[in-house]
């Protein structure tokens, strides 16, 4: 199939080239799931060849949200890059921050204190739940269950209120930074977290009551979008796409970071390999995330939340009144910024979608030479053709939804 149609907008239907025969003797029909579509979870364009109602070929065209984040990061100082890391996988900003912070800390050779690790885990798990809630709400409404949107976003509002309490921002918190976290948890935050952990399992039960045994949902997702385990591994899928095919691969267990080895939780897998299996995996992940949050909250250690290195993090403002050295550090950090020793490092974290990583190359100056984001959604979008083959065009919505791609991450 030739790729000559990126100049056209093509929201209509065109008949494909002559000679391409379908099983019923007609020609294959090429349709365009244009970038502006209510159910593609963002600006994804798919060119689909249909034989009657069945999908024979599928080609995703991406790039409609390309933001030049990696180029932008080369023009910013090390501490300013945290702000743009929030915005590529915009459903899990703290997790992106964490990947970048871990990579830079590897190069700097600093270890954050335990309280910072615990707060990082808390924010990551809250974000994981928030991201799965968006997936569940939007997948629900695309399959027709519009109540799911209302219920899921109600809980998401609670999580965003907690984000706002701890960092001042609802979504793009920029909370986790190289050297620690932005600010300590307030007592009100810890209260909100406590009541959230108590109420959330009941809410997840509500969602399951709506969907898990619902015959319409089951018939639209069981057997749809099959991705066998071998194919998932060969195509490099990670996250629920891989775990929904029975492979128990979770970076938090296999290659733990930020103290995840100290928490007791299970890895959610499903042997069903289809959309329904991935739905069960994500529901279970939400429950496990609440478990981790409860443990992290109960065991939150005391202490500082930032590494005590004035070359990396600014001194507290009270010190500026008395110490000349503090003023010099403050000035240097806010004008030129710190320099990271030359070298390269890769750090990966487990986001709601899979392995989100950050590969950082430093040339010894105060700006990065290269920041590459390993995007889980970019790799998870490649099995889409394999999953959609020979399904009906009406199942496309369920299949695109189950991949849970965030186009900001795909296009960066």
């Amino acid at each position, binding site marked *: 199939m030739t790729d000559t149609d*990126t100049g056209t907008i093509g929201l209509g239907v065109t008949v494909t080239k002559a000679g391409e025969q379908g099983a019923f003797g007609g020609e294959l029909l090429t349709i365009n799931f244009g970038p502006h579509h209510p159910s593609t979870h963002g600006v994804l364009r798919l060119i689909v060849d249909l034989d009657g109602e069945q999908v024979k070929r599928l080609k995703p065209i991406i790039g409609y*949200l390309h933001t030049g984040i990696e*180029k932008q990061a080369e023009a910013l100082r090390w501490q300013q890059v945290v*702000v*743009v890391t929030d915005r590529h996988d915009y459903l899990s900003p703290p997790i992106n921050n964490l990947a970048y912070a871990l990579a830079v800390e590897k190069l700097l050779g600093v270890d954050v204190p335990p309280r910072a690790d615990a707060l990082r885990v808390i924010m990551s798990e809250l974000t994981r739940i928030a991201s799965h809630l968006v997936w569940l709400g*939007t997948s629900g409404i695309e399959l027709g269950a519009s109540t799911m*949107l209302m219920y899921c976003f*109600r809980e998401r*509002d609670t999580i965003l209120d907690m984000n706002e309490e701890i960092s001042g921002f*609802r979504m793009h918190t920029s909370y986790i930074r190289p050297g620690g976290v932005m600010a300590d948890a307030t007592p009100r935050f810890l209260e909100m977290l406590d009541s959230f952990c108590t109420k959330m399992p009941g809410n997840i039960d509500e969602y399951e009551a709506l969907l898990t045994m619902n015959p319409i949902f089951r018939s639209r997702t069981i057997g749809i979008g099959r991705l066998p385990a071998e194919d998932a591994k060969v195509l490099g899928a990670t996250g629920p796409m891989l775990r929904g095919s029975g492979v128990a691969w979770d970076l938090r267990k296999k290659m733990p970071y930020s103290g995840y080895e100290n928490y007791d939780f299970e890895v959610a897998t499903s042997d069903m390999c289809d959309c329904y299996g991935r739905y069960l995996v994500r529901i279970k992940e939400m429950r496990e995330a609440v478990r981790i949050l409860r443990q992290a909250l109960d065991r939150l250690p005391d202490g500082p939340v930032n590494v005590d290195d004035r070359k990396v993090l600014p001194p507290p403002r009270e010190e500026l009144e008395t110490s000349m050295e503090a003023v010099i550090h403050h000035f240097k950090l806010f004008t030129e910024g710190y320099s990271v020793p030359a070298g390269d490092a890769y750090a990966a974290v487990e986001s709601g979608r899979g392995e989100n990583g950050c590969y950082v190359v430093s040339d010894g100056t105060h700006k990065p030479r290269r920041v590459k984001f390993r995007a889980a959604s970019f790799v998870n979008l490649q099995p889409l053709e394999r999953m959609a083959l020979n399904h009906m065009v009406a199942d496309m919505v369920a299949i695109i939804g189950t991949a849970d791609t965030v186009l900001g991450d795909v296009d960066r």
Partner: protein
Amino acid sequence: MGVEALAESLGQNILTTTLGKLIGWGRGNSVWPLQFGLACCAIEMIHTATASVDIARFGSEAMRASPRQADMMIVSGRVSQKMAPILRTIYDQMPEPKWVISMGACASTGGVFNNYALLQGVDKIVPVDVYIPGCPPRPEDLLNALMILQERIKAQGITPRS
């Protein structure tokens, strides 16, 4: 006597107004947005449609996906070079009268990203009526913008836009 009573009772049950005010009132209270969610701001736009903030109270119950059935395009998110011609085509497909709300810093001015890949403001290709700053703006900010737009629509009446 009977005529005065009739006139009196009619006076209490009939409103007089101008055609412009009536049409403005009708249009303003039933603005149907076009779902043009691009990036992070789209998630806050979805929050605006959900129960706690509820844009449906303001008449925007039907968030249409088809531009032919929508009045207002909420550009929520960053507009890349590849997406710009598509945005313009969709804007052209909307029937008059139509309005554009540019939601968020990226849609208004390019936002955090001052680089080659993004359009530095969607007003380079479509005329914008209300800009909402923020990254992303709160759902209440979108409601505020909608209310400002409603005032403007009601004031416009039947005067065609220039």
